């Protein structure tokens, strides 16, 4: 039985054990009419039985699946002839790969036939030993699958039997089921945390490897970015320089342009929607703004590259300015458009959270709407708005697709928005696309850039959270 079939069987067993748990609990109670005797409801018994049936078996299945291939190959390696076992790890890996591909392309009967005929005339250049090994592999797989199936089913059934034997009138099925559910919930949140930790650690280790070949000071303060490394020892001009300053400068420039557009426009939208727009209009305008946030960034990307950039270049040329076809301005403006809904939606929440009584106090004294907004609502909502802006900035810094398509590749260190600049994310993409060796500084540089980016956005997010928390304490 393969894993998916086994999984379905397990699912059926779980459903069945729910029903079984209900029935058993009723029997313990002395029939359905006496179910009031039980301290817990029959369906709680059922739920507990189902969970006790499904969960341990599922965990067994998962563990087995994750280790089974390693174990099989280790057993296989011991059966191989001594001269092959003596091979180096890499060669042995190749040999095993070969065997694996034979095993997956042939059925057991075919393999036996070929071994019996000793006919090596089929297209692959398999030796007799390889064929034999492939046969062993197949047989091992079969055995392991049987072992797995029986083990999982035995675990499922024994757990149910052990549980059901404990059933009594006072059995605390509800509390136990709740405890299991709580454990499940904790485990799920653990997954998110562990994944984050895992990513951070892997990026950190690769970065450390990078910093072994390029000193951190050069990386952080160098102003030259040309991440070429030599393919051959005697190659000229392939030394590479890894100064990340131009990349961060480019990122900051584009982010700055984006915020220059997104913050005022977003804020004004927020003010309009929360204070001026009537209910009908708000009901239409809010979802439309959210659609803006839902457009895939790649769409924004080609919008930036194909529509906005040429317009800006033509406009610039009509003023006699030379504008790069991939200007920071184009990328920044489109990114700003993308970020508008973030700013407007979060700021609107902040403004709406200002107590109505403050607004009434101001209006009641004869302040106009705009005076009220400027002098009372905005100052009171400022922490929330700052939080919104910081979140938007970290979003802008991490944004990739728009800049990949609309910003350039040239790592210019410039403050001129009409020039072409490149960003950290663009460079990470270029460094890692295509066939790359994972031990050269060129590829590892991507991890170092990723780490720096991660630290920056993490810092901004923490700052934003702190500001927002402070805001929460302000009223009440």
């Amino acid at each position: 039985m393969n894993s998916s079939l086994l999984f379905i069987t397990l699912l059926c067993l779980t459903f069945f054990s729910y029903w079984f748990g209900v029935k058993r609990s009723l029997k313990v109670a002395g029939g359905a009419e006496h179910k009031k005797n039980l301290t817990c409801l029959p369906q709680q018994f059922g739920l507990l039985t189902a969970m006790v049936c499904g969960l341990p078996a599922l965990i067994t299945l998962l563990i087995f699946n994750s280790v089974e291939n390693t174990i099989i190959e280790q057993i296989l390696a011991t059966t191989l002839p001594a001269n092959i076992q003596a091979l180096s790890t890499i060669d042995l890996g190749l040999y095993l790969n070969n065997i694996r591909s034979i095993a997956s392309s042939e059925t057991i009967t075919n393999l036996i036939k070929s071994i019996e005929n000793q006919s090596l005339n089929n297209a692959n250049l398999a030796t007799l030993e390889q064929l034999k090994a492939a046969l062993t592999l197949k047989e091992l797989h079969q055995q392991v699958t049987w072992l797995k199936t029986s083990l999982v089913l035995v675990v499922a059934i024994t757990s149910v039997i052990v549980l059901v034997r404990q059933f009594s009138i006072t059995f605390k099925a509800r509390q136990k089921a709740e405890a299991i559910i709580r454990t499940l919930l904790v485990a799920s949140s653990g997954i998110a945390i562990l994944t984050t930790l895992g990513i951070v650690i892997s990026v950190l280790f690769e970065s450390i490897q990078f910093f072994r070949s390029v000193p951190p000071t050069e990386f952080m303060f160098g102003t030259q970015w040309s991440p070429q490394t030599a393919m051959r020892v005697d190659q000229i001009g392939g030394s590479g320089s890894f100064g990340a300053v131009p990349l961060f400068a480019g990122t900051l420039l584009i982010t700055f342009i984006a915020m220059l557009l997104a913050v005022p426009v977003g804020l004004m939208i927020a003010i309009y929607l929360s204070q001026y727009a009537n209910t009908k209009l708000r009901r239409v305008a809010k979802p439309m703004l959210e659609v803006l946030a839902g457009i895939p960034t790649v769409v924004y990307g080609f919008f930036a590259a194909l529509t906005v950039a040429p317009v800006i270049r033509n406009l610039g040329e009509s003023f006699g300015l030379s504008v790069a076809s991939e200007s920071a301005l184009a990328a920044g403006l489109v990114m700003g458009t993308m970020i508008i809904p973030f700013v407007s939606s979060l700021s609107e929440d902040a403004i709406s959270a200002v107590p109505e009584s403050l607004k009434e106090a101001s209006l009641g004294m004869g302040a106009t709407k705009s005076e009220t907004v400027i002098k009372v609502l905005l100052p009171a909502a400022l922490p929330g708005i700052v939080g919104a802006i910081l979140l938007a900035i970290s979003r802008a810094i991490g944004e990739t697709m728009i800049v990949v398509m609309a910003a350039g590749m040239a790592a210019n260190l410039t403050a001129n928005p009409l020039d072409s600049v490149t960003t950290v994310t663009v460079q990470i993409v270029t460094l890692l696309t295509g066939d790359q060796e994972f031990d050269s500084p060129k590829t590892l540089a991507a991890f170092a850039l990723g780490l720096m980016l991660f630290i920056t956005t993490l810092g901004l997010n923490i700052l934003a959270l702190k500001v927002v928390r402070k805001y929460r304490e302000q009223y009440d």
Partner: protein
Amino acid sequence: MNNLNIKENDLSELALTETVGNIYADNAKMSIRNADVYYGEKQAIHNISLDLAQHQVTALIGPSGCGKSTFLRCLNRMNDTIDICRVTGQLMLDNDDIYAKDLDPVLLRARVGMVFQKPNPFPKSIYDNVAYGARIHGLTNNKTELDEIVETSLQKAGLFNEVKDRLKEPGTGLSGGQQQRLCIARTIAVSPEVILMDEPASALDPIATAIIEELIDELKEKYTIAIVTHSMQQAARVSQHTAYFHMGKLVEMGKTEDIFTRPEHKLTENYITGRFG
């Protein structure tokens, strides 16, 4: 059972009656005639007419949901902030129709100030709270004049001595009673003619309430005051005129001592003797 009967009687009686007592004042600062207020389709105020006598305190009393706050908020057009609210009838401040098309609600609210149920100082300094209105209306030309307005307003609100050393501290740091007096000072600072108070002491302790009541008594020398209150004792203590509202209608209005000693209408009598409310 008995209670239910009373309520049914009340309704039928109310449907038949007009306002009893005397709604007119000799020197009316505001006079309201046949005011109706609707929230969407629902009518919240039915045909109310009354006068607010100049330099006197008029108390609006009545059970919860009777429309007294709604009515109060019509007097400086605070209800404009509610989209679905519609006001008809004639509402006059001196000789100005406050719902006239060419009347600017912003200027109206400078003349008719409002103090709210919950103290709502801005999260600014005490000084800035009081100076707020004067600044937006451009009442002063320089800092000295503004200082003067802030000081006299705080003095009139009986708060100056308590806060004179900490004018730069946030107004939200004061006690509830002080906050409410700060809000009164803030309202006075724009020199309104009428002050509307919506249960100004309901969130305060008895001592702070007593201070506010004393203050209201002093303020009536300069301002015309309308106060919504749930406390019959408060109405009796601070007001010269009392209007009793019931289910969006004005049941009875008259001099406070008359209302509390010889109510003409059975509903008023029931309410002030505590039979319901």
